[in-house]
């Protein structure tokens, strides 16, 4: 009977999504496993990659002991962290403290459900894919705030407060820039957006790319916006009181977010999996790594901004430019829907240069001024 039930329910479910290739369960199972394995492997690879790249840029070697070229270093670290004692502060809010890493980790995994690794190779080709990404990615903030609050540590609380403030501000320019891309592509599905990119949108939306990159760095707290960890100010920020596997979860979240953002930037602006000669999934991977490398590169070089400067950058620099970008894109799409792409590229790059120079003149931060 159980067998019957499961078969019937399977049949029922199979009828549900008509456009999904293969059976629902097969599709779901295979892709979930693939995504989780891919994610964990890639995150470990990214941790290794960041540490190596950082090391080389800082005139040192980086991890090179465990395994060939130190590739197994993240594995060794993970094993070490697994057997560490899990310390919960006596005055912590136990439940919140325990739940926070999970709440932070799950949404990041969920983002990957809609990222196309290849044409159609995605867990769920939602027709509102990018909206889903925006919605889900901000849930991780809740986890981080829970961690900050639940630890009952002043440093953690300060870090968590900074995180909430920055994410709330940066979400807005981020979404507006995405709207520009969506206007050109005419769809919200990530796979469709990739298919629409005969010319990568970085050329059609250079300003949008710049704003999105800055916003994404702030959103996932990469340097120079890594205020919530700010190791020189807040020791370790929100995860000061975390140890053992819970800490590992946060560490994983950090890199998984970076991976997710690199993937989204690749999908939205760099033509996703599209590219000549090489297989599409390899193109996708190469692009993701390149985007991530730029993040590592800025992390090596740039100092950290202050919290008020971070907020001012969002509201005074990114938001107006994002709005203007959206306006210009809308006008372009409306008036010259079939204009030559090369003309558009030149026009857009010129517009970006003019706007950035103009804003640079108007916009001033720091120099003894406190914004808020």
């Amino acid at each position, binding site marked *: 009977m159980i067998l019957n039930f499961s078969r019937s329910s399977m049949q029922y479910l199979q009828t549900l999504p008509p456009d999904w290739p293969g059976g629902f369960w097969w599709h779901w199972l295979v892709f979930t496993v693939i995504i989780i394995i891919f994610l964990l492997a890639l995150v470990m690879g990214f941790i290794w990659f960041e540490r190596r*790249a950082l*090391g*080389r*840029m*800082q*005139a*040192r*070697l980086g991890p*090179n002991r465990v395994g060939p070229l130190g590739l197994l270093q993240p594995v060794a670290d993970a094993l070490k962290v697994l057997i560490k004692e899990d310390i919960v502060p006596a005055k912590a809010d136990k439940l919140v403290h325990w739940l926070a890493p999970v709440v932070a980790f799950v949404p990041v995994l969920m983002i990957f459900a809609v990222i196309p690794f290849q044409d159609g190779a995605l867990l769920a080709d939602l027709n509102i894919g990018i909206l889903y990404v925006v919605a889900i990615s901000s849930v991780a903030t809740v986890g981080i705030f829970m961690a900050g609050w639940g630890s009952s540590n002043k440093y953690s609380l300060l870090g968590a407060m900074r995180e909430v403030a920055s994410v709330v501000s940066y979400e807005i320019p981020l979404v507006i820039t995405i709207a520009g891309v969506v206007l050109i592509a005419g769809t919200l599905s990530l796979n469709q957006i990739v298919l629409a990119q005969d010319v990568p949108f970085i050329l059609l939306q250079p300003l949008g790319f710049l704003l999105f990159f800055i916003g994404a760095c702030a959103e996932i707290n990469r340097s120079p916006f890594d205020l919530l960890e700010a190791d020189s100010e807040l020791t370790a920020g929100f995860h000061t009181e975390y140890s053992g596997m819970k800490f590992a979860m946060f560490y994983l979240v950090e890199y998984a977010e970076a991976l997710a953002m690199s993937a989204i930037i690749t999908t939205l602006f760099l033509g996703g999996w599209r590219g000549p000669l090489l297989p599409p999934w390899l193109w996708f991977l190469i692009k993701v790594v390149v985007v991530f490398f730029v993040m590592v*590169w*800025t992390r*090596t*070089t*740039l100092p950290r*901004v202050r919290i008020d*400067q971070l907020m001012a*950058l969002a509201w005074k620099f990114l938001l107006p430019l994002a709005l203007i970008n959206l306006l210009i894109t809308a006008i372009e799409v409306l008036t010259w829907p079939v204009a030559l792409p090369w003309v558009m590229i030149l026009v857009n790059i010129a517009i970006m240069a003019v706007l*950035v*120079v103009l*804003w*640079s*003149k108007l*916009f*001033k*931060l*720091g*120099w003894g001024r406190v914004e808020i």
Partner: protein
Amino acid sequence: MKFERYGIGIAKGLMVTIKHLLRRPVTVQYPEQRLNVSRRIRGNELVWDRIKCTGCATCSKTCPQGVIQIITSVNLVENKYEVEKFEVDTGYCIFCGLCVEACPYDALYLGYAYERAKYRRGELVQANEMLLESADRRRSGYFHPEVAAELPRQTLLLERITEEE
């Protein structure tokens, strides 16, 4: 941040870091790669020359930490002091080298070796035979240029970088 230079400062900094990606790293993989230490290294122990030592205890008086203990007896036959015990508590020693400087008979040297960690504090108290020179307890050239001349040349980071580029 005033972008009065349109981010040129940021771009310049990024160029420096990317330049370093292509340069050789300067770190040394220690247990496998070893650099020559200074010829005058004030290494982890004292090396004592029993024949030259007269037991005058100048070193002991000079020692700011007071870790050198010398017990002598009078040898009436040869009319000199006989050193019965020369003990250094290297656990308290700060390797300032003042004893080596003070020794009027060149009987005391600092060690050239540097991997001389011990497992017990008791082993740090070294006396008599333990202080003599041996294959793994070589003398350093600190305050003894004639010893320094025999030791290998010190590797300098300054030269290492330029030689390999």
